[in-house]
């Protein structure tokens, strides 16, 4: 498989976490200038690691990056309500 968007950098990881519901979706747009605490990112990574069955380190380690780069379904892992829910246009 070709990884269309391999996740190796912190920014890519944050965008991944935002896209699939682990972080505020506003972060999906880097130009938004939103600030987020390191603790929030750590919690989001732990949340993802838990979901993927990985060691829950809170660190973007190689195994976590590998799993973030895997081919996958485009539906969010964490499905919110209200404004963060998927909407059909």
């Amino acid at each position, binding site marked *: *498989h*070709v*990884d*269309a*968007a391999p996740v190796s950098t912190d920014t890519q990881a944050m965008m991944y976490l935002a896209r*699939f519901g682990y972080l505020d979706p506003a972060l999906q747009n880097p130009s938004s200038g939103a600030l987020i605490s390191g603790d929030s990112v750590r919690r989001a990574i732990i949340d993802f690691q*838990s*979901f*993927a*069955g990985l060691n829950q380190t809170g660190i973007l380690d190689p195994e976590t990056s590998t*799993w973030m780069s*895997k*081919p*996958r*379904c*485009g*539906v*969010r*892992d964490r*499905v919110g309500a209200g404004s963060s829910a*998927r*909407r*059909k*246009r």
Partner: protein
Amino acid sequence: YALQGSRWRVKQLTYSITKYPSALKTADVDRELAKAFQVWEDVTELTFVHLRTGKVHIEIRFESGEHGDGDAFDGTGGTLAHAYFPIYGGDAHFDESETWTINSYKGTNLFQVAAHEFGHSLGLSHSDVRSALMAPFYRGYEPNFKLDNDDVVAIQQLYGKSGNVATTTETSSRPLPPGRATTPRVSFDDGSNGRGNAELCGSEGKIDTMFTGPDNKAYVFKGEKYWKLEAEAVAPGYPRSIRADWEGLPGNIDAAFTWTNGRTYFFKGSRYWRYTNFELDADYPKDLSEGFAGVPSNIDTALVWSGNGKIYFFKGSQYWRFDPQQKPPIKSTYPKDISNWEGLPNSLDAAFQFTNGYSYFFKNGQYWRFNDRSFKVDEGQPGYPRPAGKWWFGCDEVNFKTRPGGSKLFVDRPHAND
């Protein structure tokens, strides 16, 4: 497992594939997606019906990049597909840029991804059980795919258990009729090849009617008996007695079809019978004039045509179109000549829409597949008509059969349904 929070209120769901992938054959896509729906059908009370046109519950499309829903695909790899939960419409989109494959370790397995996406279409969110189908990550081709118990429990929370399957998908076919498993049935041993299909084979294989039931299985009725069809032959234990299994229904049926409401209608003479989930509805049979005004008595066959989802009745050299949403349901311009259906013979025995979305017509042991786009009998290799026994009923045809006209028709070894 995780439930999103919405589900369908009906047990029979329709779907259509409005945009096919460019690299696979349409029939292959139809088959793989039907298999993907079957995964969920096997463990719930749900049934899925493939329609070619008209309004459906779940629309399926293969798209590239931005495709109108604000959730663009990203080329090969990455995101493979996405689907909407029931409350958002249930539609499923697949990334056309992926190398979709069938039964291959190369590329991305269409069946597995489709089964996952349809889980979303039915109301399942992603599971954190890595072995579950509803886990978000693609695991590669699994030749012996089995639904995980996590998935089974999840879907049964939403739609209940299948009548005969508890918590596994290892059983691929269900006894029939569902819900009547304890009812004594009469089965027949025809003493031929042990498959119970002898009466359906050869040029003597004339049948009364054929239809797709509410369980999405094909059924054949002939005389006092009926057969359920599996992938390549009749199901074990068939034929069975019509009178024993179908309360109130006589033998020698003229025609039958299952309507989009999941109800099955049988026609004989000037009367019709209606069944819901294989149970006769109250106050039936009724006279044709009570529900099918304008339809003649003693019809040859009827079908819900895959081309437009409307009901067609055939008799002799004529046909009638019946649209329940119109008043009157049959326009004054009917009947019309069957010759409008290019390539079909008059005086048909049976016709029905199969689960692959095609309409098939039967007469004197032969069958024709109709091409809804060109509006004529399909071309194929071999061409139509084909021997129904070999292609539908698993008959061990001899290598040469004599046509009524005396010419020889070569018949290959039977191997698969059309």
